[in-house]
């Protein structure tokens, strides 16, 4: 019986979280669900009972009641009290959902160089101020992830990836969500809620994964015809593996850039200076 109840509840709950904020949202949801189901069944049963019990019968006379102020006041108060309880519960959970914890001892060591701290009171950082900061850029119809490690003063030259974000385990990851064209929405259900990528604005969230794994998500705000195929994957790996991946990414990007430069020079030579548009 308990098993059945648990399964039924699980049917009506969101994805189990792999990050503390997603777990806390899940807990908050489940408590709300229990309260909601109690109210739901109470009201539906009252309605059903009234419809069956007071259906028209021979000799029955309808009671000519116009109302009852005490009843009116008490159910108004009861509704308010239940909602007040839900509000208090939300506030109790809020700080653990919004405020990221420090990275764990097994996480990636975050040095000054790749620890970018934003001067923003909206961005929540761990108590020690250290988090792996990744900029998530939404564009029609692909997600780009830019890692710390810019080589040029204007922020260019940083390693990046498309579609798949690789992150180290035990490490608090802070996301800076932006858009380069229309409104998108970042969402990987197991890693917490969704946040819109709005052109001209920064939006922030965070997650922290303990065990290696792959988490799937997709753009959650209509962004055009390719919206359904704008997928996002987060792959959590051991910190050592992450650092190797990041180094490789850097190497491949600089190699590709060098190759592109050569190709551009070749094209320029072929068709004459200034005649080449966008390659």
């Amino acid at each position, binding site marked *: 019986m308990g098993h059945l109840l648990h399964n039924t509840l699980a*049917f*009506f*709950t*969101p*994805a189990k979280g792999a990050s503390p904020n*997603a777990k806390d*949202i*899940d807990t*908050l*949801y489940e408590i709300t669900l229990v309260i*909601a189901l109690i109210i739901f069944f109470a*009201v*539906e049963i*009252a*309605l059903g009972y*009234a*419809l069956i019990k*007071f*259906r*028209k*019968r021979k000799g029955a006379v*309808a*009671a000519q*009641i*116009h*109302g*009852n102020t005490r009843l*009116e006041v008490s159910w*108004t108060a009861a*509704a*308010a009290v239940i*909602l007040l309880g*839900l*509000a208090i519960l939300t506030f109790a959970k*809020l700080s653990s959902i*919004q405020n990221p914890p420090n990275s764990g001892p097994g996480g990636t060591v975050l040095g000054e160089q790749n620890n970018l701290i934003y001067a923003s009171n909206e961005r929540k950082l761990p108590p020690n101020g250290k988090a792996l900061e990744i900029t998530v850029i939404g564009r*029609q119809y692909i997600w780009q992830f830019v890692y710390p490690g810019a080589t040029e003063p204007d922020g260019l030259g940083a390693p990046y990836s498309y579609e798949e974000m690789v992150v180290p385990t035990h490490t608090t990851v802070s996301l800076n969500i932006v858009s380069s064209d*229309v*409104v998108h*929405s970042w*969402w990987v259900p197991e890693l917490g*809620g*969704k*946040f*819109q990528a*709005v*052109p*001209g*604005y*920064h939006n922030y969230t965070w997650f922290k994964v303990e065990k290696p794994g792959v988490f*799937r998500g*997709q753009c959650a*705000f*209509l*962004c*055009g*015809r*390719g*919206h*359904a195929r704008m997928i996002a994957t987060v792959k959590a790996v051991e910190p050592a593996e992450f650092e190797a991946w990041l180094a490789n990414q850097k190497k491949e990007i600089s190699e590709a850039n060098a190759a592109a430069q050569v190709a551009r020079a070749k094209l320029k030579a072929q068709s004459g200076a200034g005649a080449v548009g966008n390659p």
Partner: protein
Amino acid sequence: MATYAAKSPQISTHRVEHEAKGWTSWITTTDHKRIGIMYMVTTFVFFCLGGTEALMIRLQLGAPNNTLVTPEVYNQLFTMHGTTMIFLFVVPMMAGLGNYFLPLMIGARDMAFPRLNALSYWLLLAGGIVFYASLFWHPPEAGWTSYPPLSEALYSPSGGQDAWIYLIHLTGISSLLGAINFYATIANMRARGMSWGRLPLFVWAILTYSVLLIFALPVIAAAVTMLLTDRHFGTHFFDPTEGGSPLLWQNLFWFFGHPEVYIMVLPGFGIVSEILPVFARKPIFGYKAIAASTVAIAFLGFLTWAHHMFTAPIPEAILVFVMLSSFLIAVPTGVKMLNWIATLWQGTIEFTTPLLFCAGFIALFLIGGISGVFLAIFPVDWQLNETYFVVAHIHFVLMGGAVLPIFAAIYYWFPKMTGRMLSEGLGKLSFYLIFFGILITFLIQHVIGLDGMPRRVYEYDNVGHLALYNLISTVGSFILAAGVLVTIVNVARSLKTGVIAGPDPWKANTLEWFTSSPPPVNNFDVVPLVRSAEPMKDIRHEIQRRSSGAGSGAATVPAGATQVGV
């Protein structure tokens, strides 16, 4: 206006002016009843169009990775569906019902401004035609919310987006003029004795609907005008690269968009508050509480718009404020639900089709109301927002809160409009198909959303049981459509062959039942003095008292009383 001090109900002369005949008479009419019927027929046609779009959406989603329609067509379908149902069906359908019944219920002979009333209708029709004409070129595809920059010329260059803008303008002016007309009519044209405390609850609802429209519509009108000038005249209101802000649109749109939900459901609440007491044979429980909660919901409705923007970059203080204001709005809504159930309590309930639709409304709207509380908790909303959970929520709110009451209204008031009854058998069949169709289609969509499927995607992978759940939802939508079809058949048959209704077939409470069915052009030759919130009950008692007094002597009434005014 009501200057007739009638001592007793009596019929003197009918049809002083001849009722005009032929199709031109419909174009030139300023009679609120004809305009009301044109509203209802037009909006029902749009309901069928919007429903067809919904069925195509469900067919596409009936199987994973389906290729029935292209992403372009899919985006056009849900844009047309949402826009049609809101701007061309629910809001103007409520205006149509208000048009026909509001003057009758308050004992007036027409609306305050009959020609303005006709203009309202023709503007609505023009909006609908402009919008649907885009089918022949290129329909809009940025969703009914049309967020820029996606709806800007750079990303949506087709004229379909402009057709959408003109639809908002034309239906907006139509609703605004209608709202002013309703307000003026209610304020000035009530029968003698109909104080605010005796106003039928449907009239309270239409009054609140009108006030909401008057406050909300100018905001959306401004927003779409800004979008129009952005698209064609070089402004940059929503363009961040030139100092504009896409968030400005979200704020303006939802400042209108949230009250719009109450614009759609409050008249539904009003319909239910009229019908339940008639078939429970009891007065409405807590008349004042229901009227007051209608006004409270309307006021709070203007404080909660940012709960549609919980995932947007907005300050935390706003998140908290809006969560609390959204919680607050659940209180008057809950009060209404309990009042309706208390109205049924200890009654003698007659299970007619209108009553079934009202009971179905309570059962299903409750689900939409409760899922709304989940969405008001902003951290929970971060998971549920923009998924099928929200689609399920809004459909329980609108199917429960607006569509079921509209069907209740059709079955309840058809006899008044045509003089003939609808078939109860077909009516009940229609109810059960629609009721279970809604449940099957939308209950499972909560689970689809919880399993991570966002809305507005034209395809999905079969992760978990998504294929099965979506198939269930698709099957449900066709059951629902069958239910609507049964009512269409019922209406078509009963127009010719329905049982003759007579003036008051339900033994109802409000003044529209005082006149003949269908009512004459001037509605009433004599407007009775209103003595309570249920004037027809008083009139029936008076007639019974007098006739029993005349027939069997003064057995049940004091002797002197029978002589008054006979």
